C-alpha cells in the first residue's frame, strides 16, 4: 500500500507494483461487455463459484493436474488469489500453529498468518554462486535448513512457484524435497501458483499437488488477474480435495458469500476459448509467456547496460536487480530504513523510475541479506519500456 501512493504520479515510469499496463486479450474484454446485457447475470450466483466458471476451471485443471476435479466440491472461487490465500489460512490455520514461509515472499503471507494467530517461520532462498546471481535458478533452499524448520507444530508451508519476486520456477527435485517433508510431518502445502502460465523457455511449471501423496494435503491457488492480465477483475480460485476445500467454503460463506456474477461469467467464457486450444501455441496461456519473454530479455539488457545486475527470472513477470554495483551513497539519508528502501525513494525522486525494494518481501532477520535488491515488473506495454529505456540509458549521465 505504501509504494502505490508514491508511484501514482504519472510523470514516473512505474515498474513497481505488479500490474499490467498491457491490454487484456480482446475476447476477454468482449466477453465482459456482453454480460451486462443479460439480466440474471446482474444478480447473485452460486456462493462457492458461478456454475459455468467452476465447470470451466475443473476442465482446465483436470488437464493440468491429470486427475478428476469435481467443480462443486474441489473448487472455491474467491476475490482474487488474495481472497484464496485468506480463505485457506482462515480455514486451516490457527493459534499454536507454525507456518513456514520461504523468503523473499509475497508480502501478504506474513500478516495473514499472524491474523490467524499462527507463527510465521521463515527460511530464505540462498544464492548458490557466492552472491553472484545471473538467474533465478541460482536461488535455492538448503534442504537441511528446510528440514530443520519442520516440527510437530508445523501446520503448513506456503509455496509460491513461479516465485514472486525472484521469478524462480521450482524444479521437480526441489518440489520433491518439500513434498517429502510435508508427508513426513503431516503438513499442509498452500501452493500459490498465480504465475503458473508464465514460464520461459527451458522451464516447466510443475504442480506440487501432482506429486505422489500431495493432492490430499495441498490447496493450489490460481488467479484470473495474472492468467488474463485482468488484475482488476479480482477473481481467483482454490483447488484441492473436498475435505479441505469445504472448510474454505465455510470461511467464504461467512466473509463475503459470493463473488461478482458478470465477471465470473465472462471469465468462464474466456476459459472455454483457451481450454479448447490448450495444446495450441495460440492459447493465451502460452502466447502471453512468449510476449513476456521478449520483454524480460529487453528489460535485462537495458539494466545491464546501465550497470545494474539483473537476476533473469525463469518465470513470472518480475525481475530482481542488484543495485549495489552502482555504489549510490545514501548514508546521508539518516532514516533507519534498509538500503533498498532508500535507493528506491532516491530513484523515484531523481530518475523518475519506480520499483519495489526487496526487503519489503522479507522477514526481520533476512532484510540485510536482500537489501541490495529491488524488484522491477516487466508486464508493461512497449511505450512504458521505451520510457524506462530512456531513463536507463541516461542513468550514468546524471550525478546523484
Amino acid at each position: 500500500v505504501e509504494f502505490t501512493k508514491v508511484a501514482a504520479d504519472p510523470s514516473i515510469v512505474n515498474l513497481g507494483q505488479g500490474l499490467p499496463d498491457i491490454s487484456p486479450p480482446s475476447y476477454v474484454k468482449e466477453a465482459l461487455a456482453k454480460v451486462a446485457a443479460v439480466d440474471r447475470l446482474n444478480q447473485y450466483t452460486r456462493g462457492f463459484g458461478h456454475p459455468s466458471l467452476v465447470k470451466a476451471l475443473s476442465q482446465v485443471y483436470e488437464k493440468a493436474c491429470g486427475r478428476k476435479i469435481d467443480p462443486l466440491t474441489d473448487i472455491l472461487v474467491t476475490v482474487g488469489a488474495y481472497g484464496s490465500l485468506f480463505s485457506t489460512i482462515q480455514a486451516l490455520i490457527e493459534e499454536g500453529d507454525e507456518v513456514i514461509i520461504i523468503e523473499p515472499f509475497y508480502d501478504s503471507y506474513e500478516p495473514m498468518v499472524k491474523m490467524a494467530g499462527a507463527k510465521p517461520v521463515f527460511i530464505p532462498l540462498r544464492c548458490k554462486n557466492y552472491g553472484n546471481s545471473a538467474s533465478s535458478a541460482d536461488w535455492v533452499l538448503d534442504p537441511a535448513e528446510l528440514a530443520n524448520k519442520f516440527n510437530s507444530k508445523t501446520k503448513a508451508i506456503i509455496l509460491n512457484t513461479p516465485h514472486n519476486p525472484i521469478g524462480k520456477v521450482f524444479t521437480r527435485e526441489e518440489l520433491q524435497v518439500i513434498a517429502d517433508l510435508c508427508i513426513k510431518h503431516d503438513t499442509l502445502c498452500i501452493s500459490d501458483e498465480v504465475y503458473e502460465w508464465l514460464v520461459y523457455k527451458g522451464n516447466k511449471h510443475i504442480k506440487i499437488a501432482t506429486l505422489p501423496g500431495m493432492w490430499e494435503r495441498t490447496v493450489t491457488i490460481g488467479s484470473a488477474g495474472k492468467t488474463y492480465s485482468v488484475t482488476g477483475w479480482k477473481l481467483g480460485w482454490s483447488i484441492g480435495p473436498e475435505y479441505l476445500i469445504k472448510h474454505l467454503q465455510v470461511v467464504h460463506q461467512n466473509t463475503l458469500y459470493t463473488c461478482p456474477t458478470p465477471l465470473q461469467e465472462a471469465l468462464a467464457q474466456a476459459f472455454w476459448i483457451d481450454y479448447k486450444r490448450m495444446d495450441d501455441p495460440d492459447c493465451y496461456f502460452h502466447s502471453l509467456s512468449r510476449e513476456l519473454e521478449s520483454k524480460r530479455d529487453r528489460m535485462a539488457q537495458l539494466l545491464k547496460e546501465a550497470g545494474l545486475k539483473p537476476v533473469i527470472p525463469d518465470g513470472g513477470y518480475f525481475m530482481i536487480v542488484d543495485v549495489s554495483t552502482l555504489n549510490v551513497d545514501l548514508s546521508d539519508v539518516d532514516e533507519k530504513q534498509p538500503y533498498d528502501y532508500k535507493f528506491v525513494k532516491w530513484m523515484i525522486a531523481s530518475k523518475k523510475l519506480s520499483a519495489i525494494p526487496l526487503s519489503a518481501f522479507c522477514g526481520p532477520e533476512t532484510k540485510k541479506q536482500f537489501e541490495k535488491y529491488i524488484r522491477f515488473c516487466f508486464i508493461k506495454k512497449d511505450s512504458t519500456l521505451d520510457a524506462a529505456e530512456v531513463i536507463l540509458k541516461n542513468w550514468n549521465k546524471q550525478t546523484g
Partner: protein
Amino acid sequence: IKASNSLSFSLQAKMSRPVRARRLEGIDKNIWVEFVKLAATYSKVNLGQGFPNFPAPDFLTEAFTRALSGGNHMLHQYTRAFGHPPLVKVLAQFFEKLLGRDLDPMTNVMVTVGAYQALFCCFQALVDEGDEVIIIEPFFDCYEPMVKMAGGTPVFVPLRPNPPKDGKLMSSADWQLDPAELASKFSKQTKAIVLNSPNNPLGKVFSHGELGLIAELCVKHDVLCISDEVYEWLVYDGKQHIRIASLQGMWDRTVIVGSAGKTFSATGWKVGWVVGPDRLLQHLRTVHQNSVYHCATIAQEAVAQGFQRELMLYGKPESYFVQLPKELQQKRDWLVQSLDSVGMKPIVPEGTYFLVADISQFKSDVPDVPNSDEPYDYRFAKWMVKNKGLAAIPLSAFYSEAHKKNYTNFIRLCFAKEEATLKAANDILQKWKQEKTSS
C-alpha cells in the same frame, strides 16, 4: 505416515492431524446454501432469496458497457484498494448531504465486496474475544456466525409483536423492542450493537424514538453501533429512513453499511461500502487490506456513475431512489392482498423488499413431527417448494438457535419480482386454498 507402508495406500491418505481451524466451529451451517439449492431444483416461483428478478436499471448497465467500450483498458487492472476514487468521492458527496456533515472520501468511506464483506470487516476489526455484541432478532443470519468467528459472544434481544387490537393486518411497526429488556442486555462486555433498519426479514423501519432509545444506551455504555442500512432507499407509505449516525453522540461510534446491490437492483455486482469516522474505519481498512485488498474495478466505476446520476436527480421524480420504492410499494400491496385473500396473514412491511407471513392456517398440510431436529417452518418451507413449487424462507432462519422454536409459523417472501412472477405466486396460492376448502 512412513513411506515404507504400502505405498499406494499411504500416499492416498488424507492428513491425519485435525485441519479445521477452531474459529469455524458452529458456523458451518448456512441457510442459503441449502435453500438456494432447493429453489434451483424445485421452484416454479422463487420468492425466497432476496434478489430482484426484474432487470437492473438501464442507466447502470449502460454505465458498465460504456466504461468497457471507452478504450481505457486500465479499468481491467487494480484500482485503489480502499475504493475506486470516483466511487468514494461520489459516496462521500452523497452521504455528506444525507448526514449533514463533511466527509473525506479517503478516510470516511471504504468500498467492500458487497455489504456482506463490509459486515465482515466490521466484526473482525471491532470485535475481540470476550466481547459481547447485541443482535436484534429477527436478524439477517450472517451477523451471528460473523460475531462468533471474531471470537465474540452474540447477545440476542427480540422484537416483540404487539398485534393491533382492531383486527387489522399487522404492520412491521407493531414489532417492537421492550426498552427495559433492551437496556438489560447492555453489560460491561458489550462492545457493539448491530442495527438493521430497514430490517430484513420483517421490513421494520425504526422510528426516531426507537433509534433514540438505542442511541442513548450506546452513549451511556460507550458501545459501538454497526448500522446495516442496505435497504435505506426502500421505505414505503411516505415513511422516512433515519440514519442513527445523525443522532446526538452517534457519528463517532457508528459504522454505516450500504449496498449497491440493493440500491441499484444489481445484487450480483457485489459492491458495498462503509461510512464512518476515521478512528473506526482505519481498523476496517486493516482487515480489508489483509483479506481481499482490492475490489473489482469495473463494477465500482459503473456504480460511481450510477450515483453521479442520482446525485443530480436527488429528490426529483426521475430519481431511481424515488421510482424504485414506488414500484416496490405496489408490489408489496399486491402480495399482501394475495396472501391475505388465501388466509396467509402478512405482516405489512414498512420497508425492504421482504415480508413475513403467518402460515398457521396452512399447517394441516404439513403435519408436525414431534422431537424433530428441524424447526417446523423449515419443514413447511421445504414441503412447500417441493409440492407447490413456491420458494420462501422460514422465519426461524433469522433467529438464534435458542429462539428458533418461538416463531415457527412464519415464512419470509421477497416481492422484488416482476408482475408475472407475483401473479404466478398468486395462482399457486389461490389453487392451494381451493384445494384446502374442497378437501
